[in-house]
C-alpha cells in the first residue's frame, strides 16, 4: 500500500504522542508509527509518580501521563499504527514500514523522529569475570516486574545511580528482593536528589559513591560481585574490596539515543537539531531522548510539541528558516541542546555542567544572559530560556559555567 501525508511521526513515546497532537493542531494530516503493540514508550513501565508536574501541573505516574495524551489523540484524526516497524527512511521523503499486513510506503512532506533511547549494556563496561545469568539492565528488570509479574532475583546489587537505578532499587526492595546497595563510580549520585531520598534513604539502602564493580563470579547464575573504591585519578584503592553475595546485578549505566533508520543527518550521538527541532535535513525534525537524554518527560513532551508544530508549518511551506547560529560548549559545560538556533524563534536551552558546583554562574554570550544555580550537578539538567533576537548580528553563541563560591 502507498500513502501520502503531511507529517509522519516515528515512535509513539511521550515525545511522539505530543508531536503528533501538535502537528494535528497546526493543521497537518498526521501518521504516528509505533513498533510496539502499545504506545507510550518508557512511560508504560515507569509506574512511579513524578511525571507531568510541569506539563499538566499534576503529579502523574508514567501510565497516567500516557493515557492523558492518548485520550487527547483519540479525539483527533491522527492515524496511529501500532505494532508497526519502520525499516527505511529515504532522502526522497519516502518511509517504508512493515506490520502484520505487509510492507507499506508513505510519501511524507515532513518527518518527526521520536525514537527514544536504548540502554547501555553491562558488557560495554568491559568488566572481567564469569559469563553468568542474572545480569540485567534496569529497564529489562523493570519490564519483568512491572509488566510481566516476574521476580528476577532474590538479592541484588545495582550499578549506576541514575534515576532509573534509584527507582529500581526501591522497586526491588518493595517487591521483597534484598537490595544490598547501589554502586556509583562518580563521587556524586547520578540521579535527582529527590530520588536519592525517596528511593534509597527512605529504605536505608546504602549508596557507595566513588566505587566500581571490578569482577563478577558464578557458575551459571551470578553469585558474587566484587566492588572496590576508586580514587580521583580513577585508580582502584588498594584493600578497599568488598564482596557482595547476590544473584542479580542490575545495571543502569546510561542511555544511548536511537537514531535508526535515519542515516543521512548529523548525529552526535543523538540527532543534532535547531531550537525548532530541525535536523540537518530540513524536512526531518527530532525530539525527546533520540536527541539528548532528558530527565523529565515534561521536557520531552514539550520538545515533541514544538517539533510537531514546526514540522506541520514546514509541510505547509510556512516555516523556512533563513539562518542558523551555532551554540558552542564553553568552559565546564558537558552537554548542550539544541546545537543551532534560528534567531527568529525563541529557544529552550538545556544544559548539563561537567562538574559539581557550590554555586554556579552560567552565562550565554554575547546575549548577556546570566543564571545562578545553587549546587549545580551534571545529573540535573538546567533550562535556560532565550528570546528571539532578530535585530542583533550574532554568528556564534557560547555557554559556560564558573564557580561563584
Amino acid at each position, binding site marked *: 500500500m502507498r500513502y501520502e501525508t503531511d507529517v509522519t511521526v516515528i515512535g509513539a513515546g511521550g515525545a511522539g504522542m505530543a508531536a503528533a497532537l501538535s502537528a494535528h493542531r497546526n493543521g497537518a494530516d498526521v501518521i504516528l508509527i509505533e513498533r510496539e503493540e502499545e504506545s507510550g514508550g518508557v512511560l508504560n513501565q515507569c*509506574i512511579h509518580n513524578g511525571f507531568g508536574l510541569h506539563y499538566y501541573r499534576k503529579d502523574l505516574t508514567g501510565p497516567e501521563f500516557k493515557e492523558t495524551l492518548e485520550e487527547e489523540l483519540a479525539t483527533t484524526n491522527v492515524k496511529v499504527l501500532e505494532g508497526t516497524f519502520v525499516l527505511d527512511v529515504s532522502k526522497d521523503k519516502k518511509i517504508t514500514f512493515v506490520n502484520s499486513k505487509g510492507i507499506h510506503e508513505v510519501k511524507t512532506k515532513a518527518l518527526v523522529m521520536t525514537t527514544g533511547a536504548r540502554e547501555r549494556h553491562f558488557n560495554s563496561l568491559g568488566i572481567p569475570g564469569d559469563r553468568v545469568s542474572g545480569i540485567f539492565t534496569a529497564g529489562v528488570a523493570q519490564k519483568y516486574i512491572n509488566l510481566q509479574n516476574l521476580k528476577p532475583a532474590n538479592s541484588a546489587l545495582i550499578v549506576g545511580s541514575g534515576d532509573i537505578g534509584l527507582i529500581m532499587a526501591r522497586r526491588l526492595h518493595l517487591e521483597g528482593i534484598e537490595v544490598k546497595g547501589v554502586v556509583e563510580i562518580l563521587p556524586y549520585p547520578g540521579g535527582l536528589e529527590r530520588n536519592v531520598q525517596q528511593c534509597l534513604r527512605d529504605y536505608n539502602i546504602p549508596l557507595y559513591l566513588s566505587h566500581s564493580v571490578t569482577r563478577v563470579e558464578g557458575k551459571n547464575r551470578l553469585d558474587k560481585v566484587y566492588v572496590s573504591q576508586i580514587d580521583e585519578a580513577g585508580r582502584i584503592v588498594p584493600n578497599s574490596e568488598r564482596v557482595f553475595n547476590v544473584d542479580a546485578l542490575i545495571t543502569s549505566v546510561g542511555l544511548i539515543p536511537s537514531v535508526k533508520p535515519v542515516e543521512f543527518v548529523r548525529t552526535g550521538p543523538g540527532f543534532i537539531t535547531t531550537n525548532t527541532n530541525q535536523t540537518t535535513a530540513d524536512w526531518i525534525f527530532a525530539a525527546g531522548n533520540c536527541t539528548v537524554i532528558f530527565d523529565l518527560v515534561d521536557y520531552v513532551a514539550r520538545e515533541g510539541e514544538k517539533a510537531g508544530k514546526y514540522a506541520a508549518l514546514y509541510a505547509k511551506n510556512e516555516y523556512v528558516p533563513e539562518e542558523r547560529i551555532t551554540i558552542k560548549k564553553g568552559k565546564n559545560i558537558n552537554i548542550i541542546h539544541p546545537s543551532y538556533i534560528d534567531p527568529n524563534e525563541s529557544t529552550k536551552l538545556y544544559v548539563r555542567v561537567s562538574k559539581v558546583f557550590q554555586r554556579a554562574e552560567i552565562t550565554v554570550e554575547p546575549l548577556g544572559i546570566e543564571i545562578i544555580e545553587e549546587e549545580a550537578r551534571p545529573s540535573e539538567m538546567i533550562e535556560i530560556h532565550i528570546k528571539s533576537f532578530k535585530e542583533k548580528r550574532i554568528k556564534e553563541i557560547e555557554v559556560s559555567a564558573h564557580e561563584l563560591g
Partner: protein
Amino acid sequence: MNLVEYKKKKIICTNCPLGCKINLIYTDADEVEIIEAQGNTCKRGLEFAKQEITDPVRVVVTSVKVEDGEIPMTSVRSDKPVPLRLMEEIMDVIREIKVNAPVVKGDIIVENILNTGANIISTRTVNSRDSKSKEQKKLKENYDG
C-alpha cells in the same frame, strides 16, 4: 525559664522533581514548629518539611495482578500519600490482590488501605483479552479507510 531546644535538619522535598534541599531550624517540644526554613522554592515545601519531621508520607506505586487481561498486571498508586512507616505492610496487602479485567484508569482497587484514608487506584487501563483484538481490528479498519 525557656528550655525549648532548637534543632537543625536538612531535608529533601520530594513533592516535585526540583527536589529542593531545605535547611530547617525547628522545635518539637509539643508539636513541630518550624522556626526557619531556607532553600524551598515554593510554599508546598514548608508543609512538606513539617510533615517530614512529624511523620513522613509517600505515595505508594506498585502493580497488581490482573486475571484475563491483555497484559498480566495493572499499575496502581495511592490517591494520596500514606505514612512511610506503613509502606511494607501496605505492600504486603497489595501483593495478595488479584482483580479481573477490564480495569479502567482510576478504578479503586483497595478502599481505605490499612485505615490510612487513602485508596489504591489503577493508573492504567487493562482491557480483557478478547476486547483487545476487537480494538486492534478497529484500528486496522481505521487505517485502511
